[in-house]
């Protein structure tokens, strides 16, 4: 146990880790404060700002809470019109409810939102594809403004956390080589066997703690700023797709999303540990880790569209790549079904366990510096 705490302490006490986490905490706190202060809502001719806007929007949304119907949408439109940007002031005009229907049921994004006369409801196939699913009787509407904002940044936060993890774990083994402590540790009773597993366990625990604790902090921030309302509302309100596997509620969706992110973090811990076990330089390990981290990104964005491995090969490789840390957290956005997501998690587990095992054997077989 002592060895575990000491290994964990070694990882956590790195200035880069503390600095990175602190910076991220300050950043998201500032984002949240700015988000609340910039909130503006217009209801029945009155304008509200900041926290007052949040309170008023909540009250308004409460009137339409529950299953979203065409009648509710029509009522919102009749009362408040479309949400738009006033070209004279540059300020948004509207409230949460008409913002929601304008964003999801009109050509708002295509027009830029500045010319009210151009904004109109989708029609025909555009309505069927984009808006109809909201009003088919399965969507629970509620005030979800805070969760929308939180979701906008969630995946970026996950990427930052992964980069912090890489920086934290690159020295796991490579530092032992460069500081020549490996020559010593590998001659101790536990240092060559149990001690290595403990080191890897500390890496996993760190990855889990980083993801979970920061997730709780992030969630807590937005809950404090915008309230806990809307967690039982439909996850489609904050952008999850209508098809594929995603939990119905926003609360369930966040848990699912962060569970995927957590799986990605643990896998990343394994891959980084493996690269660290092969490299005598922490700096080179960082470079290699970042390159390996980015490979699935490059594959999906650049190579996959060229079908470079043929249809079957490319599809297979696509599934492998979305099982890797940078994409695993995004699995919900690809509209994969439950079976596919399970396969991706299994692939991630196999790769992760293999990485940990190879790291163990590589470090254990270290023959010392010349």
């Amino acid at each position, binding site marked *: 146990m002592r060895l575990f705490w000491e290994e964990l302490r070694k990882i956590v006490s790195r200035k880069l880790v503390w600095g990175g986490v602190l910076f991220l905490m300050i950043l998201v706190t500032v984002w949240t404060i700015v988000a609340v202060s910039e909130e503006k809502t217009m209801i029945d001719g009155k304008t509200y700002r900041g926290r007052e806007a949040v309170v008023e929007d909540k009250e308004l949304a409460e009137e339409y809470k529950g299953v979203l119907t065409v009648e509710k949408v029509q009522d919102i439109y009749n009362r408040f019109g479309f949400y738009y940007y006033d070209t004279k002031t540059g300020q948004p005009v509207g409230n949460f409810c008409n913002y929601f229907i304008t964003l999801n049921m009109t050509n708002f994004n295509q027009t830029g939102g500045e010319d009210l006369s151009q904004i109109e409801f989708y029609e025909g196939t555009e309505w069927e594809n984009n808006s109809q699913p909201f009003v088919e009787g399965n969507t629970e509407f509620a005030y979800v403004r805070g969760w929308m904002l939180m979701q906008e940044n969630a995946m970026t936060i996950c990427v930052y956390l992964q980069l912090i993890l890489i920086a934290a774990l690159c020295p796991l083994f490579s530092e032992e080589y460069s500081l*020549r402590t490996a020559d*010593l540790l590998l*001659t101790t*009773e*536990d240092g*060559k066997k149990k001690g290595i597993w403990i080191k890897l366990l500390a890496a996993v625990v760190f990855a889990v703690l980083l993801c979970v604790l920061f997730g709780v902090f992030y969630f807590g921030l937005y809950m404090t700023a915008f309230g806990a309302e809307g967690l039982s509302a439909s996850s489609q309100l904050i952008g999850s797709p209508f098809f594929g596997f995603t939990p119905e509620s926003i609360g369930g969706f966040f848990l699912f999303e962060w569970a995927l992110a957590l799986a990605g973090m643990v896998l990343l811990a394994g891959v980084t540990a493996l690269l660290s076990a092969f490299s005598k330089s922490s700096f080179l390990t960082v470079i290699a880790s970042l390159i390996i981290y980015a490979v699935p990104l490059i594959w999906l964005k650049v190579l996959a569209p060229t079908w470079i491995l043929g249809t079957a090969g490319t599809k297979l490789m696509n599934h492998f790549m979305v099982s890797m840390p940078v994409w695993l957290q995004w699995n919900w956005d690809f509209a994969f079904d439950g079976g596919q997501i399970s396969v991706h998690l299994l692939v991630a587990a196999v790769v992760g366990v293999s990485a940990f095992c190879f790291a163990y054997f590589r470090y254990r077989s270290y*023959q*010392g510096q010349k």
Partner: protein
Amino acid sequence: MPELKLEGVTKRFKQKEAVKNVSMNLTEGVYGFLGENGAGKTTLLRMLCGVLRPTEGMITCDNVDIRTLDGEYRHMLGYLPQDFGYYPDFTAKRYLNYLAACKALPRETAASKTLEYMELVGLEEHQNQKIKTFSGGMLRRLGIAQALLNEPEILILDEPTSGLDPRERIRFRNIISSLSKDRIVILSTHIVSDVEYIADEIMLMKSGRILCQGRMDSITKAAEGKVWECTVSQQESDRLNDEFAICNLRNVESSVHLRIVAEKCPVKGARPVEPGLEDAYLYYMGGERE
């Protein structure tokens, strides 16, 4: 008391044979491996520690391969590497506690042993100081302290006095000497005086091979009649320096006093003297003897 046996141990790195066919038995006592840089001492010691695997041959402890013994062997081992690695931002106490945990010492034992050995090596006042602030001598002392934490039956010290001033070196020798009872102490060095006073058995190593092995008197005996002293001119000194192994050179007014290792009398007027270990070392290193 364990017995270490090396049987035909060889280590090859690509084109180079760092250790060639070394065989010996090691029991209680101090064993000094003496040799120049690149002789294969560190490689041999690393194999004894289990860090390096022999290319050929076997190292056994009580007739069991040390690789088979694995953790059981490392339980008996204390090792001070030539380049003693440490974490710069650790304090001495924290580092020793960490290594105690790696050596599977129970918490209470670890705490008491850490303090005990820091006192032994004179670091108790610096226990809460970061290791990066330590001098070379202090680092070496920390190194010996960590090697002793688990009260090893086999203590392996690679160039333990490297970089130390004479006072530190003497202190080290005394510590090692005091610890040699009921232990196998193996130390490697290229400094003759490190082993001259404390080693029970000395092994001279060159190019991966053991040139000779034995107690100091038997090592120096081979150099009897091969060590000469003379006083010559500067010019003659330069000539002799090119031709023979010079153990000691000292300027005396306008002359030069030389101590020479040579098979025969190197110059008229040179007188034979009793060889010391340094002389024997030069004698063996100058030409291979078996």
